[in-house]
């Protein structure tokens, strides 16, 4: 009896999980399929699922008409750059809050997170003017700075949670052993927090890669990353769904591959604090 109920339960859970996974995956699958259709097939009613004339002409055209590689390079520089610079700022910040907390630490953390609740568009004009004044409009440096700042609260929070897991005794032992704050950070804390730092880095690369608000508003032609590349396919004459899909597929492919390769690290990192 119990076993039958157990089996039924297992089936149900599996079914629900697959259902959810498919629902989440469907838009990506649809984009992928559409990218191989002709423009006519892409907007056909009823929609064609698998039985259409497969073609790669969207890709050849997208490739010919635009400079994919330049956008791709921009995306890599902006995503990786902002995440690395972010780590440089976030590690000491999270470290001091985790190991020398004061009465206001909790408040500071919450305040940092609250900046993420502000709609980005609310500060677009001031940031735009600041960037204009500083000559940072349409530069990769500018994007690295703004994406670093906008993801910083998440980085500090993630690292704070990881650092909190490191036993206090070990840090005190290092202090007894003659480690200065800097060497403690270098020899003890950073190596112990490395898995956490790696997942923070990965997650932020993904967040920065997908970021479109700032990248669209602060760039023009030369430094636009892949998000700008996708956006350039919504022309005034209308949407070319098939080409747009091909461009989207090209834009998300690198990050999907990265996510796939590092999924173990990502899952471990995200559940680090939860399972211990």
């Amino acid at each position: 009896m119990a076993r039958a109920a157990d089996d039924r339960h297992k089936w149900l859970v599996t079914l629900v999980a697959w259902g959810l996974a498919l629902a989440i995956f469907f838009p990506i699958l649809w984009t992928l399929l559409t990218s191989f259709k002709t423009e006519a097939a892409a907007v056909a009613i009823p929609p064609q699922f698998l039985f259409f004339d497969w073609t790669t002409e969207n890709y050849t055209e997208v490739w010919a008409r635009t400079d994919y590689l330049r956008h791709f390079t921009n995306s890599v520089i902006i995503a990786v750059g902002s995440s690395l610079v972010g780590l440089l700022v976030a590690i000491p910040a999270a470290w001091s809050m985790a190991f020398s907390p004061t009465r206001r630490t909790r408040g500071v953390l919450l305040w940092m997170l609250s900046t993420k609740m502000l709609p980005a568009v609310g500060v677009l004009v001031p940031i735009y003017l600041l960037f204009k004044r500083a000559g940072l409009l349409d530069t990769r440096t500018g994007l690295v700075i703004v994406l670093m700042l906008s993801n910083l609260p998440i980085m500090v929070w993630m690292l704070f949670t990881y650092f909190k897991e490191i036993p206090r005794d070990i840090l005190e032992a290092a202090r007894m052993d003659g480690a200065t704050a800097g060497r403690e950070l270098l020899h003890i804390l950073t190596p112990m927090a490395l898995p956490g730092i790696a997942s923070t880095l990965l997650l932020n690369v993904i967040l920065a890669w997908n970021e479109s608000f700032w990248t669209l508003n602060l760039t023009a032609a030369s430094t636009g990353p892949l998000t700008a590349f996708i956006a350039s396919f919504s022309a005034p004459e209308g949407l070319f769904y098939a080409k747009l899909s091909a461009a989207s597929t090209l834009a998300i492919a690198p990050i999907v591959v990265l996510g796939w390769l590092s999924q173990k690290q990502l899952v471990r990192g995200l559940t680090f604090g939860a399972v211990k």
Partner: protein
Amino acid sequence: MASIALKNVSKSFGGREVIASLDLQIERGELVVFVGPSGCGKSTLLRLIAGLEDVSSGEVLIDGRDATMLPPAWRGLSMVFQSYALYPHMTVRENIAFPLKMAKRDKETIQRKVNDAARVLNLQDYLDRKPRELSGGQRQRVAIGRAIVREPVAFLFDEPLSNLDAALRVNMRMEIAALHRQLGATTIYVTHDQIEAMTLADRIVVLNAGRVEQIGSPLELYRRPATLFVAGFIGSPRMNFLDGAEASRHGAATVGIRPEHVSLSASDGRWQGKVSLAEHLGSDTFVHVEVAGLGTIAARAPGDLDVRHGETLWVTPDESCLHRFDEQGRALAA
């Protein structure tokens, strides 16, 4: 090797006093044990000496020099933590070498000292392992190795054996005693276990609620406890306490008698009672006798004594071995 002195040292956490003003002199080469129940302030006191906590007032002198404001590393002390606090990402070799590396010693010196420490502590075969691949006892040895390579002026041990199982604890206790004899270094050892305190210490500092109850050699504490607290804390099974009429007969508020100073007889004696528990340890038998009007009296009897629960026995204290205490719990002169 150094002497350590505490002058009027006190510590408060947010207005709550955990160490009341305290003076203590620890001589060179001495092994002093801080003992007391949990929350008595013994670990805090050790951390004040280590520099891991700042004193609220008073001075910490190491070899006569004021170390009150010095950061931990500059005090020249080594500490062994209850949790061992090994660096999990480093091998045993790197763990032991860490303090030397921080002191910027040259490679050959580091290697030689690590090998020496490993030999003393029987760790040669484990030098390339990570802490997680070691047993509790081995981890403890690594922690001690890390403490001795720096050649500190004094060792601080914070309940180093409480995470080990009973058999290993006895072994490590002997190893620490042997190591102390070998190195002759000033050592402060914190424990809540009075047996560890009795077996290891040159002198014991008994702490209770942030105050020093008594300082003395193990046998002084055992023979002449200065307070009711010390009398009850040192010795196992604990001292029997009697108050009321029996105590006033001896001109005291409370009288105490150790179990080994109580004799048992089947036929006659001072008080008659029923055996409520007989603990047969082989070498000894601890007999707990329920005496009407007095409570339970524990007596230490030979191991071959054949007594059972519920039997009627006579108990007689050796009156020359009574400890007398006043209302405040202070010992009265014999």
